[in-house]
């Protein structure tokens, strides 16, 4: 512990993600084409419920099985992970999630079949997953709703700079279940409307999506680096932010000293709710007035605790690609002229500010840029 100092840079040695479109390159291509993965599906799976926008991995049902039916998708994702003794003392794993296997507890409550209990608690789920993926025991777990992945990035960075690790793996996952779809449906923000992030319309709504991603962080130089990271927790209200947007600004402002002369764009949290969307747009516009802003949750849905890692992987694809996907699912007018609805030319930029928000007014931001 020392006086507060800027977060040191760390390099992105490898990354990957999984969404309803498939891997990072398939997701990037689909977003560039303006495709929407969300479809209306019953919130409670085979038990019915309201039809709500969900984006599940291809072929996966919302209803839980034992073992969870999302395991093969995770296994496929980790085949692209650089080989190594992940979970060993020098190669720690930082697992982040919001829901873990809580859908299995829902399945147990509905069926009383004890087989679901092996995956229901966060620790049992992560321990099971760790063994399935062949990782050692050096696995730390963070859970802070939709900013969870950012906690993994920050702690991995600190472990690397403290000399406690040679490489660090941040692994994030959140797969939908009736538990989470039913919960957000009960909050009324998940309803029959498709989300339109940052669109100036009469009512807001969100969609939900499956997501998993990984990032291998290292101090060894590579093409992309996470130049700055920031957190801030308003603790104003469980489901609302301070009306003046001070919480958004308090987080984003921590990133600004690291910007330098970079030409930036911004990948916002942008779930499709109105109030938070307006506040986020205003804060980003004030901090980075020249940076066009996009959100991809109108296509992918909100992938919850994994969103920070999923969207980091897509942002990395953008920095290497020709285009930056626009805010799919939204149309003008937006909350601000900075909102980009259509794809942007990638070569016009050399860095991206990525933000995430969560229950309790939790905020996270990072700056990803070319080395």
């Amino acid at each position, binding site marked *: *512990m*020392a*006086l*507060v100092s800027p*977060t040191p840079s760390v390099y992105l040695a490898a990354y990957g993600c999984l969404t309803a479109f498939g891997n990072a390159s398939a997701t990037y291509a689909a977003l560039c084409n303006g495709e929407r993965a969300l479809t209306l599906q019953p919130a*409670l799976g085979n038990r*019915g419920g309201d039809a709500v926008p969900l984006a599940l991995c291809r072929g996966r049902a919302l209803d839980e099985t034992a073992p969870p039916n999302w395991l093969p998708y995770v296994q496929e994702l980790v085949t692209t992970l650089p080989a190594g003794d992940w979970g060993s*003392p020098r190669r720690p794993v930082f697992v982040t999630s*919001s829901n873990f296997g*809580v859908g299995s*507890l*829902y399945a*147990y*409550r*509905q069926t009383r079949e004890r087989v679901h*209990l092996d995956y*229901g*608690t*966060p*620790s*049992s789920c*992560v321990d099971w997953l760790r063994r399935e993926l062949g990782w*050692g*025991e*050096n*696995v*730390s*777990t*963070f*859970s*802070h*709703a939709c900013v969870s992945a950012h*906690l993994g990035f920050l*702690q991995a960075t*600190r*472990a690397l700079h*403290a000399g*406690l690790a040679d490489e660090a793996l941040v692994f994030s996952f959140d797969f939908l279940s*009736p*538990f989470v779809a*039913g*919960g*957000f*449906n*009960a*909050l*009324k923000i998940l309803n029959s409307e498709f989300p339109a992030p940052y669109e100036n319309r009469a009512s807001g709504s969100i969609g939900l999506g499956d997501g998993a991603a990984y990032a291998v962080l290292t101090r060894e130089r590579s093409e992309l680096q996470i130049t700055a990271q920031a*957190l801030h*927790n*308003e*603790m*104003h*209200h*469980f*489901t609302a932010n301070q009306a003046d947007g001070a*919480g958004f600004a*308090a987080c984003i402002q921590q990133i600004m000293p690291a910007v330098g002369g970079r030409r930036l764009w911004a990948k916002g949290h942008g779930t499709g709710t109105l109030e938070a969307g307006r506040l986020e747009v205003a804060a980003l516009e004030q901090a980075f007035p020249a940076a066009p802003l996009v959100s991809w949750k109108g296509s992918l849905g909100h992938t919850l605790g994994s969103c920070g890692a999923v969207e980091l992987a897509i942002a990395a694809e953008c920095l290497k690609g020709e285009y930056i996907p626009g805010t799919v699912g939204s149309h003008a007018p937006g909350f601000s002229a900075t909102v980009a609805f259509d794809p942007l030319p990638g070569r016009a930029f050399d860095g991206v500010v990525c933000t995430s928000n969560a*229950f*309790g007014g*939790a905020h996270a931001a990072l700056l990803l840029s070319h080395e």
Partner: protein
Amino acid sequence: MLAAYIHAVATDDPGAEEPAGTRERLKDRFPRGATRRMTQLGLLMGAVLDPLRLTEMDTVVYASEFAESRALEGFLDSFPSASPTLFQTSIHPSAVQQWLIQRQQAVRTFFPMTGGPHLVAQALQVALLADTPRSIFCGGDERGTWLLEAGAASMRTFAFALALSRDPLGAMGEIKLAPSDHASGDLSLQRFFDALQGRESLALSPTAGLWLTLDWR
């Protein structure tokens, strides 16, 4: 080696007390009416964090294996008419948020963690690597009912909080995490809580590759 001095410790061990009993016992420590909306773990976390006088510049590390077991049970019971209140209350790290939101106390860096037998070591590592002058390491669990019968909740309700800094002046103890050759080890959250409550010194391997010492003055 990572190390810090302990400047404050607070624990609450309600034994077999039910949530209603905890609410009644602690009601004077919260604003009138506030406890109605708080979980048992939320009440206990508030009780142990209150004396530590958190500031925005503290790093808060919160460790819980099962977290909001009672709210989770209630939310699962509420289907098919899912309860929005129980949904948001059941989400980790609601217990600490309940208290901080009530106090309108912003915190820049907040690391909610979960895990099993290595959770104490992992959470301590996060607290000891923090870049703020003070770290608050807190944790706890609440005893479940039907989730406990299913083996998916804590058997015991407890909460603790300790304030850590690099300043030795006025410290009441010291905690260290050093590299070791131990191939295995564990230290449960409950065992750590007992050591804090009894001011018991520890010298053990809390996870593979690490050695923990906890000393009191």
